[in-house]
């Protein structure tokens, strides 16, 4: 009788263990998708964080070209765009130079600079000569690739 109970405990206990593992794995997946562990969000004052992020655009999104759909979260650091492997956004575009353009953050606003590329960088229809202020939604065109800032 007792052995029967033990067997049943084994049977369901093991399934429970297996599913707990899957739950743990899904928590990691979730943490990766939404950033930070679910339980840890409260440790950062949410308002302060939101306030800091509100300033200016938060993502650089590729809207056309082979990398279309790629999204890069903007931080403080400059974004280097080109065919070189160490670029932040590595283009596979035949019309892009290896170091093509740079996006730089200055006080929450982003400026695009052409780094002496062969075929040029265009903001809207205008060829970028010196650093130009990019506002969210303005298309930056490099070869076949079109990028824009999104908040």
């Amino acid at each position, binding site marked *: 009788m007792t052995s029967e109970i*033990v*067997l*049943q405990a*084994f*049977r*369901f*206990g*093991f*399934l429970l*263990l*297996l*599913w*707990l*593992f*899957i739950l*743990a*794995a*899904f928590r*990691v*997946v979730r943490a*990766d*998708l939404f*950033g930070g562990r679910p339980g840890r969000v409260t440790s950062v004052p949410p308002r302060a964080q939101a306030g800091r992020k509100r300033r200016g655009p938060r993502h650089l999104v590729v809207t056309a070209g*082979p990398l279309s*759909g*790629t*999204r*890069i*979260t*903007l*931080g*403080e*650091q*400059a*974004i*280097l765009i080109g065919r070189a*492997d*160490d*670029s*932040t*956004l*590595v283009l*596979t575009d035949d019309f892009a130079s290896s*170091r093509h353009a*740079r996006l*730089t953050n*200055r006080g929450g606003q982003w*400026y695009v*600079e052409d780094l002496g590329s062969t075929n040029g960088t265009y903001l809207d229809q205008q060829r970028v000569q*010196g*650093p*130009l*202020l990019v506002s969210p939604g303005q298309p930056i065109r490099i070869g076949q690739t079109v990028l824009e800032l999104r908040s």
Partner: protein
Amino acid sequence: MVTPGPGTDPRASAAGSGPVPKRRGTELALLGFAVLITMAAQCIVDITMTGSLTSEVATFGAWFTALWLVAHVLVRRFAPYADPLLLPCVAVLVGLGLSMIHRLDIAGDQLGSNSSGEDAPVQLLWATVGLGLFTAVLVVVRDHRVLARFAYTLALVGLVLLAIPAVLPASISEVYGAKLWIRVAGFSIQPGEFAKICLIVFFAAYLVDKRDVLALASRKVAGLELPRGRDLGPVLVAWAASILVLVFERDLGSSLLLFGIFVVMLYVATERASWLIIGLLLFSGGAFVAYQLFGHVRVRVDTWLDPFAYADEGGYQIVQSLFGLGTGGLFGAGLGGGRPDQVPVAKSDFIASAIGEELGLFGLVAVILLYLVLVERGLRTSLVVRDGFGKLLSAGLAFAVAWQVFVVLGGVTGLLPLTGLTTPFLAYGGSSLVANFGLVALLVRISDAARRPTAPPAPTPPKLTDAPTEVVRP
């Protein structure tokens, strides 16, 4: 839509905002959990089947723990930013497989029908060899992009590996009618398993090179963008190669696997659904011809359509497997409580039905979810990694696992004809296990590159903020 992981977030690598989370702690914790699950399974099997625990369990546990500890330390050392879920999922799958094989060993001993001896220790040994390959790949391949340079060499290696069993005499290469083995001095190797990985690397490198041609040049026929005739070359070659495998090695599984992987990688590289349709048409044509020409294909299809009509001959396996799954029901018979040993070759081809019988639908779904997590991490790596070769390679590797699981589980449950592919990581079989360890090592390597924070460009140009010019807003 790509949501950047911690590795791609430039904010994370900015000075002062702290180090990027490597998540190695998460990995270690989950690996511990995986070892716990495996040990629980082993103990339950022993207690249920023999009524006692022997010291073998402790030996096994120590070995198994050491295995994953070593893997973890290696990842910490050589791929610190790697995805934290890849190894733990593999650990649970390998552990479950080992427990199931151990359980079938005991059943064989008790019935006195165990001709091949204990298989679980052998499988553990193979896992150790697999760890060796894992180590070698991580240590040698420091940057996955290097592999693209050896693409054509690897393609040659892959083709040679595929062809070896076809050339060898049947006494060395034939098991159950499929000529895909090399059996030397008690060891049997399926070179096709390694060929698979070599060919995926080649496909990725080739398609990165040629994808613009394959994607852009097209004619529109009946609303469908069709590629030009001359661009059909590679897909036709892949198709012909898989047919040749089928003819000379009588192996449905590898043939289906290779062709499926190639078509899907073509689709991933070009984003054009017409390749999938072309692939499907070629597949249907090939399948129809194979059905007409080859007896063994016809047997497989007939037993698939009506297994119970052939229950005493070709359909015996599948019928037993279906009975097993039925007996298992929702919660299963409990580890050691069923009779999965009734299915022929339960340790390798039919291990999924053994798990279905003993752990029930809940257990089998859990196993499928483990594969799902593994594949999801692979595809996610493919989204996050920044170079085209890495993207295609990780997508191809992840798809290979998914496709294999689908085809095997489809076969075991009667959804698809039986093919003789192995369930990755679970099934008994050295080559499959070792090759899949290599596959995971590649995924770990690429995911490390994907999540690694971007290094700032070496010659730091003067900051825009320091420039004396004033930007005039329009």
